[in-house]
């Protein structure tokens, strides 16, 4: 799949990539479906694709109770969670790159993930202390909401620091992102010092970046965030396209630029923060997926955003299937897999002639 995706795009001679985009979306939907089957049918226990078929065709009575439980209570929520997390990470990356007009903007690289992580750790450590009343009221949504606000704060701060007169310089963006990320990490360190043993276990588990321990509760807790982002995608796509020409040109073409930016910042924080809350920090999905998709379907957000959702979900499910099987019965943290695969791809993209060139960086 990687090789096919990394091929440079062939633009139709008439310059119109609409059909190309539609075909790619259909293809990605098929890939995502296959990835779901893979995720449901692979694991350290003997339950496989054949049992899945038996289950899906309504003959679940012929499966043992244990196999049924594995499918229903373990694999199904994990697949659903992987789908949502992958889609959220990839879409938040694509939106952020559009917002900053910069192919290098990624929530992981510029500290948004750290902000969400800091807030999540604060939620764990202070959830029984000063934040206890808030935690009581919000219940299951406490952690994702905290992470959302943490991500929102860092995205906003980054935007204000790195953007002058509507232009974002790559250098300022990356450097201020690093500083904001480091500050968040330092504060997270302080939180960890304050944590007791049980909280430390929670933090460590969460910090590894994993889909392990997926439950329907977690799926339901991030579903509204990811769902909301998916719903607004078509409404921001045209604006993000116009924004590529600059704030002024976008305004000239009828885009309410400030409102668009606010919506996108909130959407990035929602997608990124909620995934961090349930799965820890999983890197590189947000930068590699949109970048590969731009190569095959062009940069238009009409196709890039839904394409990122489909491809991000598929990629994360495949990575998770690998994480569960290569060292079975042990499980690798999925963040390790995505970094092992994503970092080299990213570097390759930087080097390649179809990749990001100095010319692209104002």
């Amino acid at each position, binding site marked *: 799949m990687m090789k096919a995706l990394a091929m440079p795009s062939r*633009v139709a001679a*008439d310059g119109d990539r609409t059909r190309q985009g539609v075909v790619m979306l259909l293809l990605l939907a098929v890939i995502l479906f296959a990835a779901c089957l893979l995720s449901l049918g692979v694991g350290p226990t003997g339950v496989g694709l054949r049992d899945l078929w038996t289950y899906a065709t309504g003959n679940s009575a012929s499966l043992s109770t244990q196999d049924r439980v594995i499918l229903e209570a373990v694999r199904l929520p994990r697949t659903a969670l992987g789908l949502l997390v992958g889609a959220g990470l990839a879409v938040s990356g694509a939106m952020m790159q559009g917002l900053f007009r910069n192919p290098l903007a990624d929530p992981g690289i510029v500290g948004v993930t750290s902000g969400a992580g800091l807030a999540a750790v604060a939620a764990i450590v202070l959830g029984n202390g000063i934040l206890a009343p808030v935690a009581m009221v919000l219940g299951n949504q406490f952690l994702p909401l905290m992470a959302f606000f943490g991500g929102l704060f860092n995205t906003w701060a980054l935007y204000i620091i790195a953007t002058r007169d509507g232009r974002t310089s790559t250098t300022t963006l990356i450097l201020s992102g690093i500083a904001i990320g480091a500050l968040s990490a330092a504060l997270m360190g302080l939180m960890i010092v304050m944590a007791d043993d049980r909280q430390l276990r929670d933090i460590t588990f969460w910090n590894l970046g994993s889909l392990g321990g997926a439950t329907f509760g977690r799926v339901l807790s991030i579903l509204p965030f990811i769902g909301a982002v998916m719903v607004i995608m078509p409404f921001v796509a045209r604006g993000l396209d116009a924004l*590529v*020409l600059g704030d002024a040109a976008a305004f000239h073409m009828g885009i309410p630029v400030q409102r668009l930016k606010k919506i996108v910042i909130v959407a990035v924080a929602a997608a990124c923060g909620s995934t961090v809350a349930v799965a820890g920090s999983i890197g590189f999905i947000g930068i590699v997926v949109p970048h590969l998709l731009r190569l095959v379907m062009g940069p238009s957000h009409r196709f890039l955003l839904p394409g990122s959702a489909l491809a991000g979900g598929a990629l994360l499910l495949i990575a998770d299937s690998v994480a569960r099987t290569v060292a079975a019965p042990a499980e690798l943290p999925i963040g390790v897999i995505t970094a092992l695969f994503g970092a080299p791809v990213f570097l390759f993209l930087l080097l390649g002639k179809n990749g990001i060139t100095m010319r692209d960086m104002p």
Partner: protein
Amino acid sequence: MISAEHVTVARSGRNLLDNVGLDLEPGKFTVVIGPNGAGKSTLMKVISGEMKPDAGFVSYHGTSVDLCRPVELAKRRAVLPQATQLAFPFTALEIVRMGAVAQGALNPTEQARQALSRVGLRGFESRPYPSLSGGEQQRVQFARALAQVPQPVVDGMPRALFLDEPTASLDLGHQISVLEIARDFANAGGIVLAILHDLNLAAEFADHLVVLNHGRVVAEGACLETVSDEIIANVYGIAGAVGRLPAAHIPYVLPQSRHR
């Protein structure tokens, strides 16, 4: 008619625009000239609705620009900015189509194709914008503006084209072509406002010439009245240059419209 009245813009204690008034009439090609820092681009930003003036106001056919939503403004006027760079490889067609979409075209792709062939870029549809030369990029942007206001007049209401240094990176032939398209737009009843640096081009195409200096309108009217030795000397500091031929051993080529 688009009017700016008593427009003042102050930045860091300096008046970029000082009580500027300007009427853009349908059917007229208005050109603003002036030295660097005279406030030409600022004036265009205020008139296009992009920048709010500190004092004064701008109205489109009697409606204050503040009351127009961006979507409505986009249908009334298109703006050609100075050089635009992109971080993402959109094709020429995709860029121009954005203009057509902003206008609410039923078939934006077809409209974009027509605009591209109008600026002489037929066959460039699939070229990635970042791979085009500076002049070609400028013409793609011009096509985008044209696709946004394809008809100079719609239901009796004139549309406007604002061009900020449209000829900046173009060769002589394309400078003329671009301005001829703009003049046709004005002749068909549209409103055209262009910022130009080349006084010869300005004199060739302007129906109404506005000379801006230090944020003030120092002269306006027909070219014969405004491009005078006195004004050019005052504004640009070059005396006695109007109508003077270069020394005999220097050839000179003045930009001139092909059909006049």
